[in-house]
């Protein structure tokens, strides 16, 4: 709270601060900091569960936010599991291929649509808007993915989501805001359209690629519905789905017939058939690490990215 008081003093040089104003500052700080703690502490708790040794559990009577004993046993178990390592690799591959494809397709479309003089560009923009309004239902979409031969292949992750209206409009907006003089100067020097795109426009477009790329990468990393619906192949499960499986094994225990009749029969012993909480939380942490690694960079970009999306109108 120290810094609050400092600033209060700075302000008070100009205008005296009333009692109610101080109380409001105090309350605002308490509330905002509490919200931040509520967001942060559960994540830290998950980490501490993952490093609490199983043996220490019965001694201490439960998990603590700061564990007394630390062990990386759960991590060894998890990393020795072929399924989890495979899931991690599938996700990494999916992020790399899916994000590159998405950026290539959407930036190309955004560039074409940024040229208002292109005959037909008005119609194209309407087509892209159409996809906002008419979202196809699950079943016809599934049948299309199926007849395109994508079902149960890696490509189901990356091809149907390659074009996205939001990214296209953000790219379009960005290209439209580039000063037209650059392009004209290059044209006077005899550059072709392709030269202009590759030598003038692309070198200037790093930030927008980085911002949209990060968003898309996080989306690919976090998405689990695509695999549930289109890719049942166990060898192609991304880490999010491996995590889902590890976490929801208890629903399978609970969905057993006698429990359906009498839910109270779910005893603590039923929980013992499930991977221990320590293992589950370790998988949570493993799938969380890449997000935490890109988070600082992400944060720098996302406010801008989100606002561009909001303003594009």
């Amino acid at each position, binding site marked *: 709270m120290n810094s609050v008081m400092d600033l209060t003093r700075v302000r008070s040089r100009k205008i005296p601060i009333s009692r109610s104003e101080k109380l409001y500052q105090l309350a605002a700080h308490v509330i905002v900091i509490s919200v931040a703690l509520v967001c942060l502490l559960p994540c830290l708790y998950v980490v501490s569960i993952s490093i609490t040794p199983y043996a220490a559990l019965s001694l201490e009577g439960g998990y603590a936010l700061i564990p007394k004993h630390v062990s990386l046993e759960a991590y060894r178990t998890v990393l020795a599991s072929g399924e989890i390592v495979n899931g991690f690799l599938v996700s990494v591959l999916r992020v790399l291929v899916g994000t590159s494809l998405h950026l290539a397709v959407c930036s190309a479309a955004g560039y074409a649509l940024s040229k208002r003089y292109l005959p*037909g560009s008005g119609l194209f923009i309407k087509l892209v808007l159409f996809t906002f309004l008419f979202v196809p239902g699950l079943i016809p979409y599934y049948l299309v993915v199926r007849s395109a031969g994508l079902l149960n292949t890696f490509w189901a992750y990356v091809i149907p989501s390659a074009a996205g209206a939001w990214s296209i409009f953000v790219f379009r907006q960005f290209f439209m805001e580039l000063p037209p003089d650059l392009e004209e100067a290059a044209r006077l020097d005899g550059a072709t359209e392709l030269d202009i795109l590759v030598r003038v426009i692309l070198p200037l477009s790093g930030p927008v690629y980085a911002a949209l790329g990060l968003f898309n990468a996080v989306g690919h990393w976090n998405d689990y519905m695509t695999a549930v619906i289109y890719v049942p192949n166990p060898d192609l499960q991304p880490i999010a789905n491996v995590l889902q499986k590890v976490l929801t094994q208890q629903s399978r225990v609970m969905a057993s017939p006698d429990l359906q009749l009498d839910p109270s029969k779910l005893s603590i012993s039923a929980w013992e058939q499930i991977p221990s909480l320590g293992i589950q939380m370790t998988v949570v942490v493993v799938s969380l690490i890449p997000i935490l690694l890109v988070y600082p960079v992400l944060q720098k970009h996302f406010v801008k990215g989100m606002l561009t999306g909001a303003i594009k109108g």
Partner: protein
Amino acid sequence: MLKNRSVVGKSSTIASVPLCKQQGTTHAIGVILQKYWLLYALFAPTLALIIVFNFLPNLMTVPLVFKKYYLLRGIWDSPWVGLANLEALFTSPDFGIVLRNTIVISVYRLVFGFFPPIILAILTHDLLSHRIKRITQSVTYLPHFLSWPIVYGIVLALINPANGVIITFLRNMGFTPENLLVSETFFRPLLIITAIWKEVGWGAIIYLAALAGIEPELYEAATVDGAEWYHRIFYITLPGIKPVVTLLLTLSLAGILSAGFEQVYLFYSPLTYSVGDIIDTWVYRRGLLSADFGLATAVGFFKSVIGFLLIITANKLAKRYAGQGIW
């Protein structure tokens, strides 16, 4: 297409000055293609993807709704059955439950989830300490970037019936809590609370941006005139973000039939179907797991039509009350 010529003239780029006038249409198309081939080629992949993954499934909806679809016969050879699928939909006992769950969950999300980001944004905006402002913002955005399976993992850590920290705490206090993960009474609150937890910081960003646009002089003048914090909130801050609030509120109307497929699919179980089964999860189970394509498409079609009407209405309302829409 030809009317774009006038735009061409205005755009003042040398290559775009029309080279030929008063030529035959075929010739004009040839010239246009020759001149703009690169731009058309750049748009082509998107066009192909839109046709295959948007137009095609949208077109297929009609035969699927009015046919009895057999996977092996394909869409052409499956027999027409008229309104049978739609009849089955409206007489199905599930449909009422599923529709009600969808709307109730969406309305709860709106009622309980709409205001926390606004309150958080106002309080954050008013913080005098910039360091705390920055740090708390970084922390509250974080959950938005976590996947639903990760959030579900966190939920397990907190309330699993064996050793969840909240359950253990309640037990130590002398309560005997039920298994909250499969509780019918707690299912909807669990959805709403976790969704608020995940999105409150992220949702605040847009309001913070609107707040940053308010002239600081207004606050200074008000303070000089002796305005207290509640005066400032009611007379400066709230009027300042009113357009954004109105816009987002009307637009959220459009999503009323989408109650959060990813989240519900992960959180629900047969024990909570009665309160948690929504249109999307039901279509998934009925259509893909039980291969009842006609009925499931009919439900999806119903959802799309209502969703379309809602988004049109929302846009009209947004234009009327917030002065701007989505298009």
